[in-house]
Structure formats: C-alpha cells, structure tokens
C-alpha cells in the first residue's frame, strides 16, 4: 500500500530530525538535569563542565530549571552566612587550655 509507505517515510523523517540538530553542548536534557548539582558545585571535570554549562545556559527547556536550582542554592548559602561564629571568649578559653596542656607536658591520656 502506497499511502502506508508514504506515512512511514514522513514519520521516519520526523523522528530523525532532532538527531540532525544536536542538543546544546551535545548533552541531552536528561543528562543536563542529572548533572546540574555537580555543575553548580564545580565538581565536573573541565570538558564535561563546559558541555553541561552550555546546555543549561542555552537550552530553553532547561534554563528555568537551572535558575530554580541556583535560586535554591543561593538561598541556602545566604542562610549559612548568617550563622554567627564562635562566642568571643571561646578562643581565649581554648588557648588557655592549650597552654595548660603544653606547659604541663602531660601526655594527655584519653
């Protein structure tokens, strides 16, 4: 049947088309999504980082996801930066304890 072959030909072409234009960075959306945290954390090796970065920043589908994860990470970093340091007298207390330890020449068991 001719129309069946025609249909197959059209469907076949439609299916092949995306493969002709490679995804940004030569990384699929799934791969980019899987590696977004590693990319943000700077844990990918150079070549992979460049490819994933290109994809995330130029793929219309993935870019909002990148912004979302960046926003989350920035919020956590911001919260972390608000945690105060040690109380002001803790350093002097520790130094005093170290002095006692060093000066006594004890082996400091346990």
């Amino acid at each position, binding site marked *: 049947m001719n129309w069946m072959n025609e249909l197959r030909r059209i469907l076949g072409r439609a299916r092949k088309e995306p493969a002709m234009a490679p995804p940004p960075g030569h990384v699929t959306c799934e791969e980019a999504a899987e590696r977004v945290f590693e990319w943000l954390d700077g844990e990918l090796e150079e070549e992979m980082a460049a490819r994933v970065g290109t994809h995330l920043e130029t793929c219309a589908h993935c870019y909002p996801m990148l912004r979302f994860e960046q926003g989350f990470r920035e919020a956590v970093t911001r919260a972390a930066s608000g945690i105060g340091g040690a109380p002001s007298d803790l350093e002097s207390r*520790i130094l005093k304890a170290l002095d006692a330890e*060093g000066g006594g020449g004890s082996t400091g068991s346990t």
Partner: protein
Amino acid sequence: MSNEQISTASFTQEAIPELDAVYRYALRLSGAPDEAEDLTQETFLRAFRSWDSYTPGTRIRGWLFTICRNLFFRARERAGRREEIMAEATEEDPRQVSREAVVFMASRDRDPEGAFWDQVIDDEILRAVDGLPPEFREAVVLSDLEGLPYGEIGQILGVPVGTVKSRVFRGRRLLQKQLYDYAVEAGIVSADSTGTRRRARGGER
C-alpha cells in the same frame, strides 16, 4: 624554642583560624550552643594532642571536622543515645527519596525560575536543614553550609564520593520539599496551579 613551643605555635597559627567554622559545625551537630562550645573546645584539645599526625599543608578544616564529628558521636553513644541516633537515621529510607526535581516540577507553572527562594527566610532554611534525617543533614551541612567538595566530605563521613553525591542530592530534594511546603503555607507561593500570585518576587510587602 623547645619542640613543644614550636608545635604550639604552628597549631595556633594553623588551627585556631578555623575556630568559627568548627564551632558552626559543632552547633549544627549538637543543636545547642552550650554543647557546641564544649565540643569545639574538646575538638581543639584533641587536635592539639594529635598534632603530630596532621600533615602540614593538607586540609585542616576537614581534619578538625572529622575529630569534632567523632567526639560528638562517641559522646552520644556513651550517653546511650545510640539507638536513638540509629532510629532517626532509618526514618527516611534513602532509596525512597527522589533525586528528581519534584518541587521544580510542581511549581514551574506559577514560578518557573523559583523566584520564591528569595523570600524564604534564613531561619526557616536552617530549621529545615536541622530537621533533615541525620545522614542527609550531615551531607547538606558539609556541602551547602560549609562549602566543602565531595571528596573531602567523603573523608569526613568515611564514605565513597558516590555516596556523598547521593546524600547531597537527595538531601537537597528533601530540603526543597520542606521549604516549598513552608512557602505555600506562608503564602509566598500559591498552592493551586491557577496561581493567584503569579510571581513570588515583589509580592505582598
């Protein structure tokens, strides 16, 4: 200068600048400022006694964190809290926690780029971190609060890098879920997909 004086000097020079970081870590582990102070002091004393075993130039923060963590868990065990710790640890089966960006998918129609994160207050974020199951909490604290690389986290926790990744990723997903629920409850993002507030940024106030 005696050897002892030299070692005290080098210890003071290298380890003491990490005091704030160790204290913050101790605070996240214990959840109580008093306990965190004691734990920090004990960490530095212990580190001083083992100063010989530290290789100069290697990452001192991770080394101090490892000591701090060991002291913390040993103290808990002594206090008979081992069962409690283990029970807590199993309350969330890591295999059941999705690595998928479920919150992103849930909120993308209303707030596609997650603008609502800007409006989640710091205290709420820290509370949510503290509320994570221990194995996720530890990974998230070390990676996101302390900014340590996966490799170093693996050394502190005594697990392979693959496990670190899994815990960090899943921990973040749990945290996102927690914070998203809070944001919905607080009215920062609308709960229904019709979206009465289309954008979280520049909302009410």
